[in-house]
């Protein structure tokens, strides 16, 4: 009973915290913000390294031309205004004037061209594929940048965020070996905070950018990112007042309820709309008996995802309905039913080619929750009559096994980057299935029809046409069940209620603490 009450309270708090936090009072300046970072990033140079912690700290130091609200609508950041031509092939950005990098050099259209065309094309895998759509970049004057696309590419307006398209100082990197540039250790961007110090294993210290171009911002004087390797110790760090913000995933899910019950504690699950983290089990479509769609459907109906959500994820997140996250553009909620139905699963299994073989489950080595999830799935499947065994591994081993396709079922979760052409098609395109990578079409799903639709939909100029194409794709893929979709993950950000505005874009804490102020 007690648990139910707590859970309801959690859901209520989630619903309320977001809008409330954004409203109250005049911002006050000053103070120190203490945030947990986990794991310790390998580097802060966001153009070279794209893992979560790097983006989180890098999002304070670097900026892009735009930022995106919770509905993924673009807002100006380094660009003051922008225009997309009728045919969807020309993007013109007007840059803000008077912006300087942390070393005092002005930020101009030359930096945009250098970042997009040279630096990121060279070192950023995702950007490399996006930039293939760009025919040329023009800089008619210091504050205007024009991108000429080869053909319309709808998702293009969605790539100008710091994790994807950070603006990198040309005067520091031009003509150097980017990866080995000394400056990578003292990152320079245009963002609200400057890099000050990194005590490896302890903390990263950023200080206010006094010359920031937005009047009065940032409000806080300094930010400390605390490196605390143990999840229980991170919870203690919050409980003892050492840190004020716990970004999503910092503490184990079973600790969330306890921490949330503390005074002056707010929680929000917003700030993940752009990423739309969706978890699923890869199904090795080449292995018998998983090549049989009936076996895959049986597994799909046999896995109790509501239970996983309530028991393992503390009620956070959403049960997935198919290949798209509900926050991703062109999500279609009307796809064929894949809900939990053990009776149906047993019937399907009866008709299928399954013959008692042992199916291997490769869990995701990301902590307790994932381990328990693999155990829960094992039990679910044994209830419908499928024998399984759990294969243990660490992060490197998991990568290797998935890349080599040495698995039957493998847990994973991936980001969708707001648009199916950026973050979804890579998982299902038939020509993107070569072994060697754990992030392409690992299941080796082959469907000529959806391949064609995916290719066309990315290049359609009108959003309505794209919507129709993606609807067809979603229906078809759900019908084929190439993977077992699990949950749209909820990674709640927990913070003291007197820390105002920690999450106010679709990127949450990864978008920098530009608007944060302390009401103390």
């Amino acid at each position: 009973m007690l648990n139910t009450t707590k859970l309801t309270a959690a859901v209520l708090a989630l619903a309320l915290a977001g809008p409330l936090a954004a409203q109250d009072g005049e911002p006050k300046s000053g103070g120190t913000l203490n945030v947990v970072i986990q794991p310790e990033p390998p580097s802060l140079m966001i153009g070279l390294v794209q893992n979560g912690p790097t983006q989180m700290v890098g999002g304070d130091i670097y900026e892009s031309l735009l930022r995106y609200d919770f509905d993924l609508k673009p807002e100006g950041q380094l660009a003051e205004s922008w225009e997309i031509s009728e045919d969807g092939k020309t993007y013109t950005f007007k840059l803000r004037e008077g912006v300087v990098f942390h070393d005092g050099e002005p930020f101009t259209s030359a930096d945009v061209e250098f970042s997009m065309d040279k630096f990121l094309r060279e070192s950023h895998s995702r950007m490399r594929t996006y930039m293939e759509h760009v025919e040329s970049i023009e800089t008619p004057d210091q504050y205007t940048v024009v991108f000429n696309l080869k053909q319309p590419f709808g998702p293009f307006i969605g790539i100008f965020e710091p994790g994807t398209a950070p603006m990198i100082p040309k005067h520091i990197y031009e003509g150097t070996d980017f990866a080995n540039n000394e400056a990578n250790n003292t990152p320079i961007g245009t963002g609200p905070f400057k890099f000050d110090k990194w005590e490896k294993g302890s903390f990263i210290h950023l200080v206010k950018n006094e010359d920031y171009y937005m009047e009065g911002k940032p409000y806080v004087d300094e930010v400390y990112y605390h490196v605390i390797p143990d999840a229980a110790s991170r919870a203690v760090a919050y409980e003892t007042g050492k840190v004020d913000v716990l970004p999503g995933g910092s503490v184990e899910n079973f600790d969330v309820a306890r921490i949330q019950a503390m005074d002056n504690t707010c929680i929000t699950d917003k700030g993940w709309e752009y990423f739309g983290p969706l978890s699923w089990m890869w199904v090795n479509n080449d292995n018998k008996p998983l090549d049989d769609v009936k076996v895959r459907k049986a597994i799909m109906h046999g896995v109790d995802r509501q239970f996983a959500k309530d028991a393992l994820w503390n009620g956070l997140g959403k049960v997935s309905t198919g290949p798209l996250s509900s926050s991703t553009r062109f999500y279609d909620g009307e796809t064929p039913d894949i809900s939990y139905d053990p009776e149906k699963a047993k019937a399907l299994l009866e008709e299928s080619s399954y013959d008692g073989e042992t199916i291997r489950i490769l869990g995701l080595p990301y902590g307790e929750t994932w381990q328990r999830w693999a155990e829960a799935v094992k039990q679910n499947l044994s209830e419908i009559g499928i024998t399984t065994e759990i294969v243990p591994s660490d992060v490197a081993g998991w990568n290797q096994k998935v890349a080599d396709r040495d698995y039957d079922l493998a847990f994973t979760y991936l980001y969708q980057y707001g648009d199916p052409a950026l973050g979804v098609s890579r998982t299902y395109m038939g020509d993107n299935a070569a072994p060697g990578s754990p992030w392409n079409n690992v299941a080796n799903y082959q469907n000529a029809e959806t391949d064609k639709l995916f290719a066309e939909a990315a290049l359609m100029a009108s959003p309505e046409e794209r919507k129709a194409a993606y609807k067809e794709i979603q229906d078809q893929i759900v019908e084929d069940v190439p993977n077992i979709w699990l949950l749209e993950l909820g990674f709640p950000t927990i913070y003291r209620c007197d820390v105002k505005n920690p999450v106010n874009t679709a990127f949450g804490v990864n978008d920098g603490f530009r608007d944060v102020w302390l009401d103390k």
Partner: protein
Amino acid sequence: MIRFILGRLIKAVFILLAILVFNFLLIHAAPGDPAAVMAGEAGAADEKFLADLRARFGLDQPLYMQLWLYIKGAVQLDLGYSFRQQMPVAEMIGDRLPATLLLTGVAFVLSLVLGVTAGVAASARQGRWGDTLISTFALLFYATPLFWVALMATLVFSVWLEWLPGFGYSTIGAGYTGMAHVLDVAKHLVLPASTLGLFFTAIYMRMTRASMLEVSRLDFVKTARAKGLTRGVIQRRHILRNALLPVITLAGLQAGQIFGGAILTETVFAWPGIGRLMFEAINQRDYNVILGVFYISAAMVLLFNLITDVIYVIVDPRIRLTT
């Protein structure tokens, strides 16, 4: 004596080389490589990204070539670069060493002094309540998992009583200098050092007690008593000195580990030491860092074994050194 030490040092060099080669092969036998791990964290990577990383790390070369380059560097005391952090490994280890030495060193001295004292005290009161009390505590700490003790200590002293900081090396952002800094670090040190020390205290105590009891039944102790020596003198000069040999063996082993850090304690208490560096490096397959830490710890274990042997002679003149 000098000949003995020199002989042992020469042997040690070869053992060290063998350890290096073995470690190198072992770590490369683990699935996955640092490029795959880094790409994995990014959640997306194409062929070029992986190939660039592997070329930059030198992982595109054949294994024997990589081994040869590593050994060549190691012999010249060059530990190479960390793939991930883009820093020389020697510098990274150097950065972490003071914190680890402080933690393991304090825990070592603490456990040795406490353990031997408690062991002597218990043996002197054999079978009485004082002995039972000490032995019970020792057994308790010996049997309890370290991480649990650590978490409970944090809960009691940091969360409930709020006496001591629960994690970290110093108060971040406080800007203490001089004496204030020393006190601050000392406060942060209490919980991790006692957690780490407790386990060894228990071992030293049990060993000292058992050894003392054994020696006290020997004939020369009877002789000493018959000579009319006081209890204290017999305990100290006759029994303890003879009973210490096994304790020294154990202390030598623990001393060798001082440089390897303490993975569990450092992780739970967010102590920025070598143990954590190594643990993270293993997960990230940062080969050079792992090998660098192994190299230093192996060298230290060899060195402390040698020192232990020399100390035997000092404590017990009956022992002779031969190579």
